C-alpha cells in the first residue's frame, strides 16, 4: 500500500481513457473490434469520397450484375451499386446506434440509479414498469411500435430505444443497490446532499462503467434489431440503403444473385461482431470488480 501512491500528470479521465484504449489494444479481439469500428466511422464520415457510385441512382439496364466490372460488390435489382450503398448504409447504422444509445443510456441510467438508490415504493413502481417492458420480447415490442407509428427510420429508432432501456435500467439499479449502502454515499448524505444530487453525482458515475459495457454490447443487438425490422419491412424506408432492408429486398434474388444479401449480411455480422468483441473487451477493461479491488 505504501507503494500505491503513484504520480500522474494527465488529468484523471484522459489518463483513464488512455489506459482503457491501451488495454483494449493489447487484446487481439478487442483491437479487431476497435479497428472495425474505426473503419465504420471513417466510412460514414467520408462516404461520398469512398463510395464509387451514387447509392440512389438506378440503372434499370444494369441490374443484378455480379461483383467486378466497376462494381466492387455488384449491383442490385435496380442497378444500384451495392458497395456504395453499403458505405452510405454505415451512416444509417451509426445514426441508429448513436441515437439509440444517447436516448437509452441516460434514460436507463437515471431510472435505474434512482430506483436503486431511493428504493421503497419508488423502486417498486419503476421496476414494475421496467418488468412490463422487459417481459415483452423486444423485437415484437419494436414491431408493434413501428407498426403503430408508421414505418420510418426515426420511428424504428424510437421503437428500439423504447425496448432497450429496461435492461439498462435493471443493470443500473442492481449496481446502484450495491452502492447505496456504501460509506461514501452515507458520507454524502451526512453532508446534506439532496437525493437528486447524490444520484447524479455519486451513484450515476459508479453505474457508468457497467452501463457503458452494456451499451456497447447492446449496440450489436441494436444493429440486429434494426436489421430485423428492416427485414420485416418496418425499418428504414426505401430507397435508404439500410443494411437489413437491403437483405430483405435482396433475398428474393439470393438463389441466383448471392451478392445482394451476402455483402450486407457480412457487414451486419462484422459490425455487430466487433461491437460484441469491443464490449467484451471493455468488460475486462472496466470491470467494476477490478476497479473496486484494493
Amino acid at each position, binding site marked *: 500500500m505504501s507503494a500505491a501512491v503513484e504520480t500522474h500528470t494527465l488529468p484523471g479521465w484522459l489518463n483513464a481513457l488512455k489506459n482503457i484504449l491501451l488495454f483494449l489494444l493489447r487484446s487481439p479481439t478487442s483491437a479487431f473490434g476497435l479497428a472495425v469500428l474505426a473503419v465504420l466511422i471513417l466510412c460514414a464520415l467520408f462516404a461520398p469520397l469512398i463510395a464509387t457510385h451514387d447509392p440512389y441512382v438506378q440503372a434499370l439496364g444494369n441490374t443484378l450484375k455480379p461483383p467486378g466490372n466497376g462494381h466492387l460488390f455488384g449491383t442490385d435489382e435496380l442497378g444500384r451499386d451495392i458497395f456504395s450503398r453499403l458505405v452510405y448504409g454505415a451512416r444509417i447504422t451509426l445514426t441508429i446506434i448513436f441515437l439509440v444509445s444517447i436516448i437509452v443510456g441516460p434514460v436507463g441510467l437515471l431510472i435505474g440509479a434512482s430506483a436503486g438508490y431511493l428504493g421503497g415504493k419508488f423502486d417498486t413502481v419503476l421496476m414494475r414498469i421496467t418488468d412490463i417492458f422487459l417481459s*415483452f420480447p423486444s423485437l*415484437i415490442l419494436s414491431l408493434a411500435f413501428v407498426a403503430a407509428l408508421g414505418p420510418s427510420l426515426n420511428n424504428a429508432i424510437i421503437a428500439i430505444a423504447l425496448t432497450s432501456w429496461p435492461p439498462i435500467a435493471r443493470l443500473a439499479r442492481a449496481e446502484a443497490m450495491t452502492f447505496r449502502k456504501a460509506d461514501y454515499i452515507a458520507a454524502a448524505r451526512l453532508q446534506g446532499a439532496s437525493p437528486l444530487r447524490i444520484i447524479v453525482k455519486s451513484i450515476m458515475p459508479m453505474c457508468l462503467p457497467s452501463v457503458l459495457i452494456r451499451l456497447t454490447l447492446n449496440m450489436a443487438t441494436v444493429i440486429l434489431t434494426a436489421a430485423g425490422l428492416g427485414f420485416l419491412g418496418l425499418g428504414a424506408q426505401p430507397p435508404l440503403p439500410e443494411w437489413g432492408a437491403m437483405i430483405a429486398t435482396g433475398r428474393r434474388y439470393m438463389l441466383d444473385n448471392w451478392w445482394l444479401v451476402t455483402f450486407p*449480411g457480412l457487414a*451486419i455480422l462484422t459490425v455487430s461482431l466487433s461491437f460484441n468483441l469491443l464490449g467484451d473487451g471493455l468488460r475486462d477493461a472496466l470491470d467494476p470488480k477490478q476497479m473496486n479491488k484494493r
Partner: protein
Amino acid sequence: MSFSRLRLGGAVGQLGSIIVTLLGLLVLTFFIGRMMPADPVRAIVGEDATRETYEQVYHALGLDRPVWEQFVYYMRDVLTGNFGTSIRTGQPVIQDILHVMPATIELATFAILIGACLGIPMGVFAAVNKDRWPDHAVRVFSLFGHSMPIFWTGMIALIVFYAHLDLVGGSGRMDQFYIGLVDERTGFLLIDSLRAGEMDVFWSALNHLILPATLLGYSSSAYITRMTRSFMLDQLGQEYVTTARVKGLSRGQTIWLHAFGNIRVQLVTIIALAYGSLLEGAVLIETVFAWPGFGSYLTSNLIIGDMNAVMTCVLIIGVIFIGLNLLSDILYRIFDPRTR
C-alpha cells in the same frame, strides 16, 4: 440480461407484483393495439365491403364502445377464462395457441439443448484459460453466434444444407405430403408421430427441425457461453477455490466439483431465460423457415390488429417470464443453502 430481474422480492409481495405486471402488460398491449393502424374489421369484411356491412361488423366486435369499457369487458372475460376468438382464424384463441405453442416449444427445446451442450463447456473452458488463446477462440466463436443476423444465416443455411447438399429438410415442420397424416394429440410432432408409429413422419420432422434448431441453438449458445465464462471467472477468483487447491484437489476437480457446482443455479436461470426468449422471440427464424409457431402467430396477428390473440399471447409471455422467475427462485431455494 441480468438474472437479478428474476429475483423478485419476498413471496408475499410476489403475488402482488405478478398481478400488477400482468395487468400492466395487458394495459400496454391494449394501448399499442389501439394505436395500431390495423383494421380488424377490414380484415373480416374485405376490401370491397359496403359501408353498412363494415359498420355491422364494427359494432359486433364491440369497437364502438369506449376504450375503457372494451378493456373492462376484456378483463372480465379473461378472468372467467374466456380469451375470446381470433379474428384471423375464427378459432378460440386458446385453441390456436395450443396448436402453435408445441411447434415453438419443440424448436426451442432442441435449440436450447444444443445451445447448452455447446455453451457451457465452452464457457468453462474459456474461463479456465482466461486471456490465453482458447479464451480468444471461444470468444470469437461465441460472439460470432451472437452477432449473426439470424434471418440471413438462416437463408444461407437453407440454401446450402437443403438446396445444395440435400442434408436436411426444407421449410416447415415436415415434408408436405406428411401433413395431416398424424393426429395432433400433444402437438409435438416428434411425440405424436412416435405414438402413431409413423417413423417416416418422425424422421421427416427431425430432418426439418435440425437446421433451425441448430441455428437458434448456436446463437443462444453465444449468450450461454459468455455468461458461463463470467460466472465461472467470478467463482474461480473466490477464496474457496484456493482452499480446494490447498487441500490437494486437481484443477479439474476444483473446477467441476467446486466452482462449477456453485454456478449451477445461475446457469439454470440464464438458460431458462434464454429458453424463455426463444419461446417468444424466434419470429425471424420462424419467418425464414415457415415454422408455424408462436412468434409468427403473434406477429401476424399483431400486424392485422387481431387484439384478442395478441393480448392472450402477451399474457402467456408474461406468465412464461413469471414462471421463470418462480423457477429460479425455487432453484435457489433448493440448491443454495444460504437462501433456505
